C-alpha cells in the first residue's frame, strides 16, 4: 500500500474562506474535501494517510518558513507520494502547491504531483521542476483533475518511465529530448509554412526560451585607483596551448599571469577559439585581450592597475551550465583578489 499525503489550502481543507487564509500549517490524519475523490481515484493501491492544510496568505506571505513547516508535517507521515491541490487558476494556492511539490522532491526524495490551469502563476514558476497535471480554470473540473493526478502519481510512485506530456496529461517541463519525426526537417518546415499561410493551426517545435537577465553592476566610483582585470572567452592562451583549452564546447577556463607583459605578442600567445578566424588574433593577441591598451591606461593613470592574471576560455558552443560555473568561479577569485572592474572581451 502506497502511503499518500495530500496538501490543501484552507478553503479546500474545509477550515474556511478568505477570513481563514492566514492559518498556519496543520495536519489531519485522514482525507479531507477533494481528498475523498483522490482516495477513490487511487483505489486500493494507495491510501491517503494524512492531509496537510495551510492558509493561502500564510504561505504567500512567508513562503520559506511555510514550506519548511509543511515539509516537516508531511515528513512525519512517511509518505511515498505527495499530492498537492489541484489549484486550478488560484493565484496564491498554485505557487504554494508548486513550492510544496518541489520541496518534497528535493528534500524528502519523494515523488509529488499537483494540478493547475496552465495560466496559474505557479505553473510558470514550477513546471520545470515538478509534475503538474493540466486542469481547467475552476473547481468544476475537480473530478477529472483528481483522477489524472492519481494516475500520474501512481506511476511516479512506482518509478515508471513517463511518456510525453501530451500522453500523460502533465504540463511540458521544458525538457528537450531528441526524437525522430515522421518527415525531414525541410518537409516539416514547408508543411508548417503552408499551414501558417493558410491560417491553419500549427505547433512550433521550439517555443522561444526565456533568458535570465543580468543587471549591470553599479559604476566604479574611481577608476584611477581601481584594479581592472581582463577576462575573455576569445580563447587566448600561451603559444602551443599547453593546458589544452578546447577550441569549442569548453569544459574549463584557465588563468595565466600578465606580470611583466607590456604587450601580448603573437610569438608567445595565440587564439584557439574555433568560432572565428584566428588570423588577426594570432598576429596580435592584444586584438582580443587588450593588454597593451590597459598598460597605457595604467601609465596614464586612467586605471589604478591591471590585475596580474587574466582568465580565458572558449565561448564556442560552450554550454550555459559551464558558462555560468566559469563565471561564478572567476568572480570569486577576482573578488578575493580585490579586483573592482572587469573588461570582458567576447568574440
Amino acid at each position, binding site marked *: 500500500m502506497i502511503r499518500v499525503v495530500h496538501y490543501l489550502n484552507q478553503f479546500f481543507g474545509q477550515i474556511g474562506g478568505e477570513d481563514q487564509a492566514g492559518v498556519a500549517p496543520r495536519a489531519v490524519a485522514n482525507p479531507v474535501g477533494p481528498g475523498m475523490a483522490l482516495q477513490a481515484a487511487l483505489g486500493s493501491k494507495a491510501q491517503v494517510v494524512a492531509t496537510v492544510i495551510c492558509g493561502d496568505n500564510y504561505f504567500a506571505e512567508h513562503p520559506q518558513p511555510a514550506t519548511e513547516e509543511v515539509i516537516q508535517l508531511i515528513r512525519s507521515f512517511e509518505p511515498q507520494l505527495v499530492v498537492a491541490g489541484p489549484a486550478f487558476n488560484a493565484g496564491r494556492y498554485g505557487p504554494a502547491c508548486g513550492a510544496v511539490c518541489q520541496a518534497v522532491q528535493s528534500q524528502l526524495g519523494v515523488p509529488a504531483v499537483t494540478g493547475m490551469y496552465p495560466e496559474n502563476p505557479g505553473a510558470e514558476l514550477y513546471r520545470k521542476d515538478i509534475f503538474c497535471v493540466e486542469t481547467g480554470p475552476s473547481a468544476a473540473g475537480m473530478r477529472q483533475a483528481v483522477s489524472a493526478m492519481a494516475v500520474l502519481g501512481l506511476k511516479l510512485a512506482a518509478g515508471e518511465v513517463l511518456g510525453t506530456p501530451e500522453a500523460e496529461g502533465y504540463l511540458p517541463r521544458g525538457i528537450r529530448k531528441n*526524437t525522430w519525426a515522421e518527415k525531414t526537417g525541410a518537409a516539416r518546415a514547408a508543411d508548417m509554412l503552408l499551414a501558417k499561410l493558410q491560417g491553419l493551426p500549427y505547433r512550433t517545435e521550439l517555443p*522561444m526560451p526565456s533568458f535570465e537577465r543580468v543587471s549591470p553592476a553599479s559604476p566604479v566610483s574611481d577608476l584611477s585607483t581601481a584594479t581592472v582585470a581582463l577576462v575573455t572567452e576569445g580563447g587566448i592562451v600561451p603559444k602551443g596551448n599547453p593546458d589544452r583549452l578546447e577550441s569549442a564546447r569548453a569544459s574549463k577556463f584557465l588563468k595565466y599571469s600578465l606580470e611583466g607583459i607590456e604587450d601580448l605578442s603573437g610569438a608567445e600567445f595565440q587564439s584557439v577559439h574555433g568560432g572565428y578566424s584566428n588570423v588577426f588574433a594570432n598576429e596580435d593577441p592584444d586584438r582580443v585581450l587588450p593588454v597593451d591598451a590597459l598598460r597605457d591606461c595604467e601609465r596614464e593613470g586612467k586605471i589604478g592597475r591591471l590585475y596580474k592574471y587574466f582568465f580565458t576560455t572558449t565561448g564556442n558552443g560552450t554550454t550555459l551550465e559551464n558558462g555560468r560555473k566559469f563565471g561564478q568561479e572567476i568572480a570569486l577569485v577576482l573578488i578575493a583578489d580585490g579586483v573592482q572592474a572587469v573588461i570582458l572581451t567576447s568574440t
Partner: protein
Amino acid sequence: MQGEEFPFMKLELRKFTIKDARFGEVTGIEQGTLVINKQELVEFLNRDHSFAGVEVKLARPGEAVRIVHVMDAVQPRLKLSGDATPFPGALGPVEIAGRGQTNVLDGVAVLQTGKRQGIQEGVVDMAGPGADYSIFSRTINVVLLCTPHPATTDVEFDRATRKAALEAAVYLAGPTRPMVPDHVEVFDLGALENQAHNLPRVVYIYHLQSQGLLRETFVYGEHARELLPTILHPNEVLDGAIVSSNYIIACQKNPTYLHLHNPVVLELARRHGRDLIFAGVVIANEHSTLREKERSAKFAAKLAWQLGAQGAVITQEGGGHADTDLMLTCRECEQLGIKTVIMANEIAGAAGDLPSLVDTVPEADAVVTTGNNDELVSLDPVEQVLGGEDIAGVAGPPDAGLTIALGRIYAATNQLGATHLSIRGY
C-alpha cells in the same frame, strides 16, 4: 542548339546509382561499383606537390569504421556542357550553374579530413548506433587525408585542400561522361510558374556563414564575407554555386554536399506548382557585427518582398551569434507581412533543460528544430579509424567505444533539415 533543348534555367541531374566501391586498375564504373585507381588519383591531386602526403581510403555503410576530423563532404559530379565545372568559380571558370546537364554519382561522398588550427572536427561512424545520425553513414565515402608540408601556411593549405576535394569529385565522376544514367531528375521551375497563380509565393532565405579563414562559404568561387544579400535561382544551389570551406563545429556548418542537396530547396521545388510557387532563393551572409547583421536582415527581407513572397523558410549556419541573424531576418520579414518558418538546432544542455538558443524574437513563432547538440550518444568501438589518430577533447584511443555530444557527429543536427531528427518537449 544546347539553348533550344534547354531553356535558360533548366537543369538535368543525371544520376548514376553507386552501390559499392573498390580500388582497381582503371577508374570507372562497373555495374554500379565505383572502381578507383588510387595511385592515379593521388598523383593527380598532388601533381603540384602541394601536400606532404595524400591518402585515399574507402568507407562503406555497415563497416566498423570511424572517420574523424571530417572537414567537408562533396559529391562526385561532372558538368557535361562546355568547359564548365560542377563547382563554377570554386574550380575552373565561372559559368552560371543550374542549367544544362550534370552527371552525379548518387550514393557517394568525398570526405576531406585532417586537422586545422583551432577547429573541432566531426565524427562519422559507418556502423553501430552512431550511424543512425549522420547522412554520411549512409554514403560510400572516399576519404581524403591531405597533409601539409611543414612550411605551408593555413591560407595555402585551406586553398589546396578545398581544390583537392573538388578535383577528386570531378575525377571520380569523369568516367560517366559517355554513359547513360540510371535516372534523370529535371528541374525546370519556369515551366510551371504560370500555371498556378492562386498558390502562395514562397522564398527561401538561406543564411551562409563566411567570417574569415577556415570559416568561409564561397559563392561562385568568392567568399561571401562582404555579401549584400542577393538572389539565386534554386537550380544554382543544386548545381554547385555554393561551396563550403566552413569547418567550425561538426553540426554548425553546412557541408558542400548539403548545399548541393539543400533539403529546403529540394522540398520547395518538389511542391512548386502544386502547393506553392517557389519564387526564389535569397542568400545572406551572417556577418560579425550587429550593424552588418541588421543591414543583411533588412536587405534579405526586402528582396523577399521584391520577389512577391507571402512566406519564407529561413535557415541558419552556425550557432551563437548566428542566432541573431536568424532572428533579425525573421523579424524583418514578419514586419513586411511575409510569414516565416525558421529552422534551428539547439544547445539545450545534456539534460535538455537549458535555453536552446542565444537570441530570440517574439516573431519566431514557427520553428522547426533539428535536434539538441548537447544530448549524449554512445558509439560502439570500431575496427578502423580514418582521417586522424585522435578526437579533440576525447581521451583514449579513437577506436574505443565513446560517449560524446550528438553535436560532434558530422551533420547530425544539420541546420538545413536533411534528417528526421527533431525534439519533443517533456
